[in-house]
Structures are given as C-alpha cells and as structure tokens.
C-alpha cells in the first residue's frame, strides 16, 4: 500500500530539580537520587517490546526529552544509547537530540553526552535576562545561560538549538529585543522561540503573572520574528527557526505525520501498522508505576487505533504547522486516505484565503498561519 513512514524514537526522562511555574509537561521534582540504572533498564525493557510494532524499520532520529535529561550522567546516557543500538537498526546518519539545562553542573557533562552519541543539543535557555529568568522560576542565571552555548560548542556539538521564550512577565519591547539579539549572537544552528502560554494545571495558572497585554505581546513577536529573519534564520514551523538545512529532523517527522515510538514515563507513540491502521499509545505517567510496568504488557496508559474520521484532522494538526504545508501525496501516503475526504473544507478555506494551493502544495496563508487553531477546528470530527 503506502510507503512506510519514517521512524523516530522519543525517550522521556521525567525528573527536574524543581518544577517551573509555566511547565505542564510530565515532570516530577527530584526527591533524593534517581536510580539511573534502574530507569535506563526500564527504558530498554520497554523498547524491546515496542520494537515488535515496527517490523524491522530503521530508526532515523532519537529525541531525549524531559524533565531535565541532563540530570542523568554521561554513563547513563551511554548505556541507554548503546542499549538502543543493540535492539533496533539505526540509520547511519541518525540524528540524536538531547535536551539540556544551562546549569553549571550540567555544562560539565556535555562532552560525555557527545561521546555517548548525542549529536544535537537543545538547551533550555528561555531568556538571558536575570529578571525574566527568576520570574520564570528557572534554576540557572544569566551568565550560565550565556556560557551554555559556548560550552556545547566546546564539547564538540555541531548542531545546537536554543529554546527562547518571549512575552514574559514584565517584558518590554527593549528587553525582548536584547534577548533575541543575544541568542542570535551565539549563532546556534536552530532557535525555538515560543510565546509564553499559561497552561491549565500550572502554578502560573493558579497565580497568573503580569504578562504583556495583547498589543505588546504582538509587538514583541514582531520584534523576535524580524530579528530572526534579518539574521537569516528561516521559520519552518510556528515556533521553529533554523539555518539552512538545520531543521530538527525529529520534530519534522512529527509534523509530517511520521511514526515514532515513545518510551519512558508518559511518553507518546504513533505507529502505522502493516494492515494500514495507525495506533497511538502512551505509557504510564507516574515514574514509579512506569518503572514497575515497563517490562510488561501493562506499561500502556492507553492504546488505540486512530479512527478514520480523526485521521484527517490529526494529519492537518501537525502538517499545517509547517510553513511549506504538505502535498496531497504525503497526506495519502501517511493516512491511507484520499485527499478527497478533506477537499470540501480545504476548498472552502482556500476561498476564504486561509489556505493557498500552489504546485500541489497546500499550506496556510499569512492570515491562516496566525489563526491556525481556528482553522483546524473546522476539521475536527463531528461529535
């Protein structure tokens, strides 16, 4: 039927020294020491079973996220990546990304991570401004933020991403400008720039910080985007910017509706099966429960086949985040459905100038890109 989708692997390391007030990821404050070996073993046990789902496909990318993965030792990451290579075929040019915090204790481990096989480092800078860092409850300070990128280069990383947030509590146009200028000056290959969003179930949701109003938030976004454009970074996704050819291949695979296994507490996976069905699953979120169940068939929090009426929506939810959009061919390959199922709404949105269709590529217009959520609701399956 359709060519098999590229395969990625997501690994979740759920611990942090403390929980940031804006974060709603599956992260848990560290109490005492983590038994690294036990968790790495659980991840590998989990993987050994997930591998049965992929019918011998080759792994294109790995992403180690968290939590704060850089809390783990170089040895633990080495054991993990070695263990993965024993259980699954890895492409020769595999991309292995790991998230790291800029704290000084982490910087010392960068070389070890590189030696373990990590070839792309994503550093959670968020801001270089001391005031903003403390408002965000980050554990690092501004000089650590500055040193982190340098330390990563020094450790031999040729592909570095910096995470930057904007529209922060108390942020002005000037301080936003300084932040993004500083990030660009470090010349990373990739920049992820997010507007701070208050999510439910976070401390900020309970005690809302004083955020810039809509107008200022918009001005700050313009400043950030213009600075990135001038510095020749190219936006390829709503919040992702890179130098030429330096896109994050792992995230691209999500957005192109590729397949991925997810191992670790609360990790999500999505896999196309030979019969044409696509399953989505996630693992137990509580680290303790995960550790106990990782080697068993009860390691799933839930597991289900994506219904046909949801597939179109789920594809677009990802693909329209990409600046280039998608080709009908990709849609048909990834979902096994004909593009005709979407055509009525697509045509309607093209008429509204929310979407454009050129050279067989369907993508958001400038307006559509700003109102992507509104546009996507049209594709939600009726309840």
């Amino acid at each position, binding site marked *: 039927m359709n060519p098999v989708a590229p395969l990625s692997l*997501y690994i979740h390391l759920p611990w942090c020294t403390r929980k940031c007030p804006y974060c709603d*990821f599956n992260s848990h404050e560290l109490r005492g020491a983590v038994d690294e070996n036990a968790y790495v073993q659980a991840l590998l046990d989990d993987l050994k079973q997930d591998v049965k789902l992929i019918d011998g496909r080759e792994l294109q990318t790995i*992403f180690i*996220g968290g939590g704060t993965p850089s809390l783990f030792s170089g040895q633990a990451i080495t054991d993990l990546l070695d263990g993965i290579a024993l259980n699954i075929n890895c492409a020769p040019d595999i991309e292995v990304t790991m998230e790291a915090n800029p704290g000084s204790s982490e910087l010392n481990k960068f070389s070890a991570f590189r030696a373990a096989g990590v070839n792309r480092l994503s550093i959670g800078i968020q801001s270089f401004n001391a005031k903003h860092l403390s408002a965000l409850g980050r554990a690092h300070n501004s000089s650590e933020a500055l040193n982190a990128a340098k330390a990563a280069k020094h450790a031999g990383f040729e592909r570095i991403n910096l995470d930057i947030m904007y529209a922060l509590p108390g942020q002005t146009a000037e301080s936003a400008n300084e932040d993004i200028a500083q990030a660009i000056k470090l010349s990373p290959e990739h920049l992820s720039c*997010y*507007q*701070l*969003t208050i999510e439910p179930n976070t401390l900020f949701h309970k005690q809302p910080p004083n955020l810039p109003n*809509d107008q200022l*938030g*918009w001005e700050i976004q313009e400043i950030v985007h213009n600075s990135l454009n001038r510095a020749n970074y190219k936006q390829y996704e*709503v*919040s992702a910017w890179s130098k030429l050819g330096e896109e994050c291949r*792992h*995230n691209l695979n*999500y957005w192109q509706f590729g397949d*991925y296994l*997810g191992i670790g507490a609360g*990790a*999500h*996976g*999505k896999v196309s099966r030979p019969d044409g069905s696509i399953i989505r699953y*996630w693992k137990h979120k509580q680290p303790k429960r995960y550790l106990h169940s990782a080697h068993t068939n009860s390691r799933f929090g839930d597991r289900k086949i994506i219904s046909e009426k949801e597939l179109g*929506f*789920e594809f677009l*939810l*990802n693909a329209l*985040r990409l600046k280039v959009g998608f080709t009908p061919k990709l849609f048909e390959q990834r979902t096994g459905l004909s593009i005709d199922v979407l055509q009525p709404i697509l045509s309607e949105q093209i008429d509204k100038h929310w979407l454009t269709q050129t050279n067989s590529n369907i993508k958001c217009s400038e*307006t559509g*890109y*700003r*109102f*992507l*959520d*509104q546009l*996507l*609701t049209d594709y*939600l399956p009726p*309840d």
Partner: protein
Amino acid sequence: MSNQRQNLIRNFAIIAHIDHGKSTLADRFIQYCDGLSDREMEAQVLDSMELERERGITIKAQSVSLKYQAKDGLEYQLNLIDTPGHVDFSYEVSRSLTACEGAILVVDASQGVEAQTVANCYTAVDLGLEVLPVLNKIDLPAADTDRVASEIEDVVGIDCSGVLLVSAKTGIGIGELLEEIVRILPAPQGDAEAGTMALIIDSWFDNYLGTVSLVRVMQGSLKLRDKIRMLATGKDHQIDELGVFSPKRTPKKELACGEVGYLVSGVKNITDAKVGDTITSSISPVDTALVGFQEVQPRVFAGLYPVNSADFESFRDALGKLSLNDASLHFEPETSDALGFGFRCGFLGLLHMEIVQERLEREYDLELITTAPTVVYKVELNSGEEVSISNPAALPDLSRIEQVREPIIRANMLMPLEYIGAVITLCIEKRGTQKDIQYLGRQAMLTFEIPLSEVVMDFFDKLKSVSRGYASLDYELLGYEAADMVKVDVLINGDCVDPLAVLVHREQSQYRGRDLVKRMRELIPRQMFDVAIQASIGSKIIARETVKALRKNVTAKCYGGDITRKKKLLEKQKAGKKRMKQIGSVEIPQEAFLAVLNIGGD
C-alpha cells in the same frame, strides 16, 4: 347515599408564592395520607416535569386525590388541585380554582404576603371559595407569626384570628390543618342525579394514553364506557379509562358528582379536549355549557431559529410536540435574512419563553438562537388599515404609518414601606403612570399603568433588585395606547441584521441604542477582523462600537508526540463556537441576540 358520599369530598387548592412552601406542604399531605410509600416519595412529587423540579416552580396544573381518616371517624376524599405560582402562568390558577370549593392560603411566616398571592386570593374569593389562611415555616428563627397574620388581615382582608401555624418541612401542625380542611371547607354542591356536566380543567398529551383530561364533575357522574360529548366540538367519544391520581394514576369505575379526576376517551387531537369545555353525556346531553375559561393569548413574541439550518424540520416537529401540552405556545414560520428559516413564537412571558427554549434544547437536542422578545404592537396605516406587529423587522415604512399603539398593563406591586420611593422611581423610568397607592400596615400596594414592553424586558429583575427582593408583582392587560415608537436597527460591519432590530420609545431611543451596541461589544468575541457594531434609526447612525480584531489564535508549542492536549483545546474552541451564528463572516453568540434584555443594567 350518593349525597353522603359527596359530603365526604373536599376539593381545594393551595395558593402560595414561589418558595413559600406549597410543594413541600403538598408532599406532606401525601405522606400523611399514605398516598405513597417512603420509597416512592420523590421530593416534590407534584412538580413532575424535570424542569419544574429544577426551577422549583409549577407550570402545569396537577391534582392528587387522597384518603383521609378524620377524627370524626369518617374517611374523606381530599382532592388537592395544584396551581402554578409564577405570574406568567396566572391564567392556569383561575382554572384550578374553578374546580375547588376551598383554598389554603399559605404564607411564609418570615417573608409575609406577596402581590401574586394577593391576586390569586382575590380570584379565589371572587369565585366564592372558602379561604383557609396558614402560616408556614414557623420553625425558622425569622418567623414572625403575629406580624404576618396581621399583614394578611390588612392586605388580603381575611380573618386570621384562627390562623393555623405549620411547618411543612418538619410536619408541625399538618394533622390540625387536615382537620380544619375537613371542618371548614365546604363539600361540593351539585345534583348527582342531574344530567352530567364535567369541566375540563386541563388536557395534555401522554405518549402511552393519548389525550388525557383533568376534569371536575359538576353534576351527574362519569362512568367507564360512558358515551360522552364535548360541547364545544359536538364530537362524541367513549370513556376508555378514568380515575384519580393518588398521586399514582389509579383507574376507577366512576367519577361521582363533585369529584376531580382524569379521563381518557380516545380523543386524537388535544384541541378536541379543549380546556374549559364542558363534557356531557351523549345519550342525554345538557344544552348549556358551564362557564369556561378565557382563552389565553400570548403576550411576548420572539423568533426562534435553529443554529444549524439543517435542523429546521426537526425543530418544527419539536414545536408541534411541545404545543400538544402547552396550548399557550403559539408558533408560525418566519424567515430572516440573517438567520434563515425559523418560527415566530408567542409566549405568556419571559419565563415561559425560557422554559420553552430550554425544553426544546434539552428534550429535543436542538441548538437554537432566540431573538429579542417583543410585545405585539398595533400599527394604524395611512390607509386606515390596522396591522399587528410582533416582529420589529416587519414594521412598515414610517411614511406609511399613521400611529403605533402599544399594550398597557395595570401592575399591582406590594412592598414594605421603605421601598416605595425606589419602586416609584423604577416605574417612572419604565414610562409608568401612577394610579393608586394603598398603605396596608407595614406594606404598601402600588398601582401603575406601564407599557407591557417595559415589563417583559427586565422589569421583574429590576423590581427585585431595587427592593432587595421584597417587592412582588401582579399584572393584567388593560388595552392599547398610542406611543411614539421608533425602530432601532443594528448593523454588523455595515449590514443590517434584521433579528437584532428593536422597537423603542423615541425618547429612549438614543440611550437604548448606545447601550445596546455597548452590550453587544462585550458579548461578541474578538474575531480575525474588526467588527463594527452600529445602531441606526432610519439612515441615521446613533451609536457605534468596535470589537477589535484578534491578532492571532495559534498554539505556540505543539508537544511533539502528545497531540491529545492540543486536540482537547481545539475541541473546547469548537464547542464555544457552537452557540454562535454566522452572520456574513461574523460569528455572533446567542447572548448577543438577547442583549436588549440587559441594557441599562450595570
């Protein structure tokens, strides 16, 4: 023999204001007379519609027949006929009272008398009923029985020297009250041997039985398999089932003279068992009908439109089914440029409108847009022709109009003395003219003539708020008076949206227009573009507000693998849009169509 049986019947109603404990008292009677086992005793049995129980109000008349063993050793049949408590449904009260010889006036011992209670009590006295005053909720610390008893004497004018003190909640005084009902209230009169005459108090449609009528046998009797005739239609039917509610439906062989019960007689169409009609025997019919009831006319009209135009047919069916049990609900098809196909519906009042809308949405799973309610205006054209206008958008061109006349009501309001000033100010603001004021002990009865249009909007809420909930209202329609009305149109991004048009008095048109667009600005959510809201009279713009465009609506961070959260967020956004109607390219929420109800508020 049959006369003795008749002597053991007591037909009575409970007159009480909302919340004064009528339903609880009825429940207590049922329990006391073993009408239901404890297990069957669902709180407030008589309010059987889900909505009635939820809102704590009675909408339809109901009856319950109980066996009471009195201290004199005899067993009495007590027929309690329930009455609705809200002003919107006051016409149902006189129906219920017509079937009774007595009424229990229940007054909250801490709250005192309310206007609605007074009006209903007068109706009872006019109909020749014996009224038994009762003070309820005497277990509450705030109960002030002496004050409230003297208030009943002052305001209602009935003797309260022997007033009964009860607590329906705890059961205090219920036994004594039942004894008094037997002792004081008269037994039904009427000749059991004369030609049969029974009054239809109410009719409703039951999915299993078909048309069911609640009847009171005034003379003669009704027996199973009897051939009967409805005097209004002249049609003959046979009684398939008859009986009483105890409160369970309990079939019997006969309803004797003086009794109240239900009958089922194969009537297909509910309009053939007309409320107020007289049932007689088709073998030996009587020629003159009992005095029936005035037919109820709707006072408030609004357009109802399905949000999804594909739902029009099911909406029509739902209205048809609802009207089977609600003779006061009127509807006819209507078309709006903005909303498409819908119905112009007539209601007794705003509460009635809300209830109908809620039932349509809940029981028939429809999503509806309700336009601003309006009263019926009589418009005299230059040609001398007179037309009734129940939709502001249909007002003829001003150049063709000789005169617009609007309905006027007489409002009686009862309130503690300290709120007189505030209530008078409110009534004058609502274009009212003071007609009378009476001081009745610590309360005053204020009478105003006010345009109905002012009353159907937010008058009741305002009255409650200026009097901290103490003032109460009763009103009756007086007639029509000339008024200088103008049509205020609302334009959204330059397009006139017909269902948003309102008729207002010229003197108030400027500020109403300003208030209306301001309210709408608050209610219309920000969209992808600026939304201009304008109010105009003819071609003159009198107010303008803008809903500024949203800059963006996009999730900054998509959590790679985990799309479940993002999906939930989008589903929430979509659900929010469901209650909105797309007018041109602008999405307008249901609340905005009713913005006119809240103007001049806070």
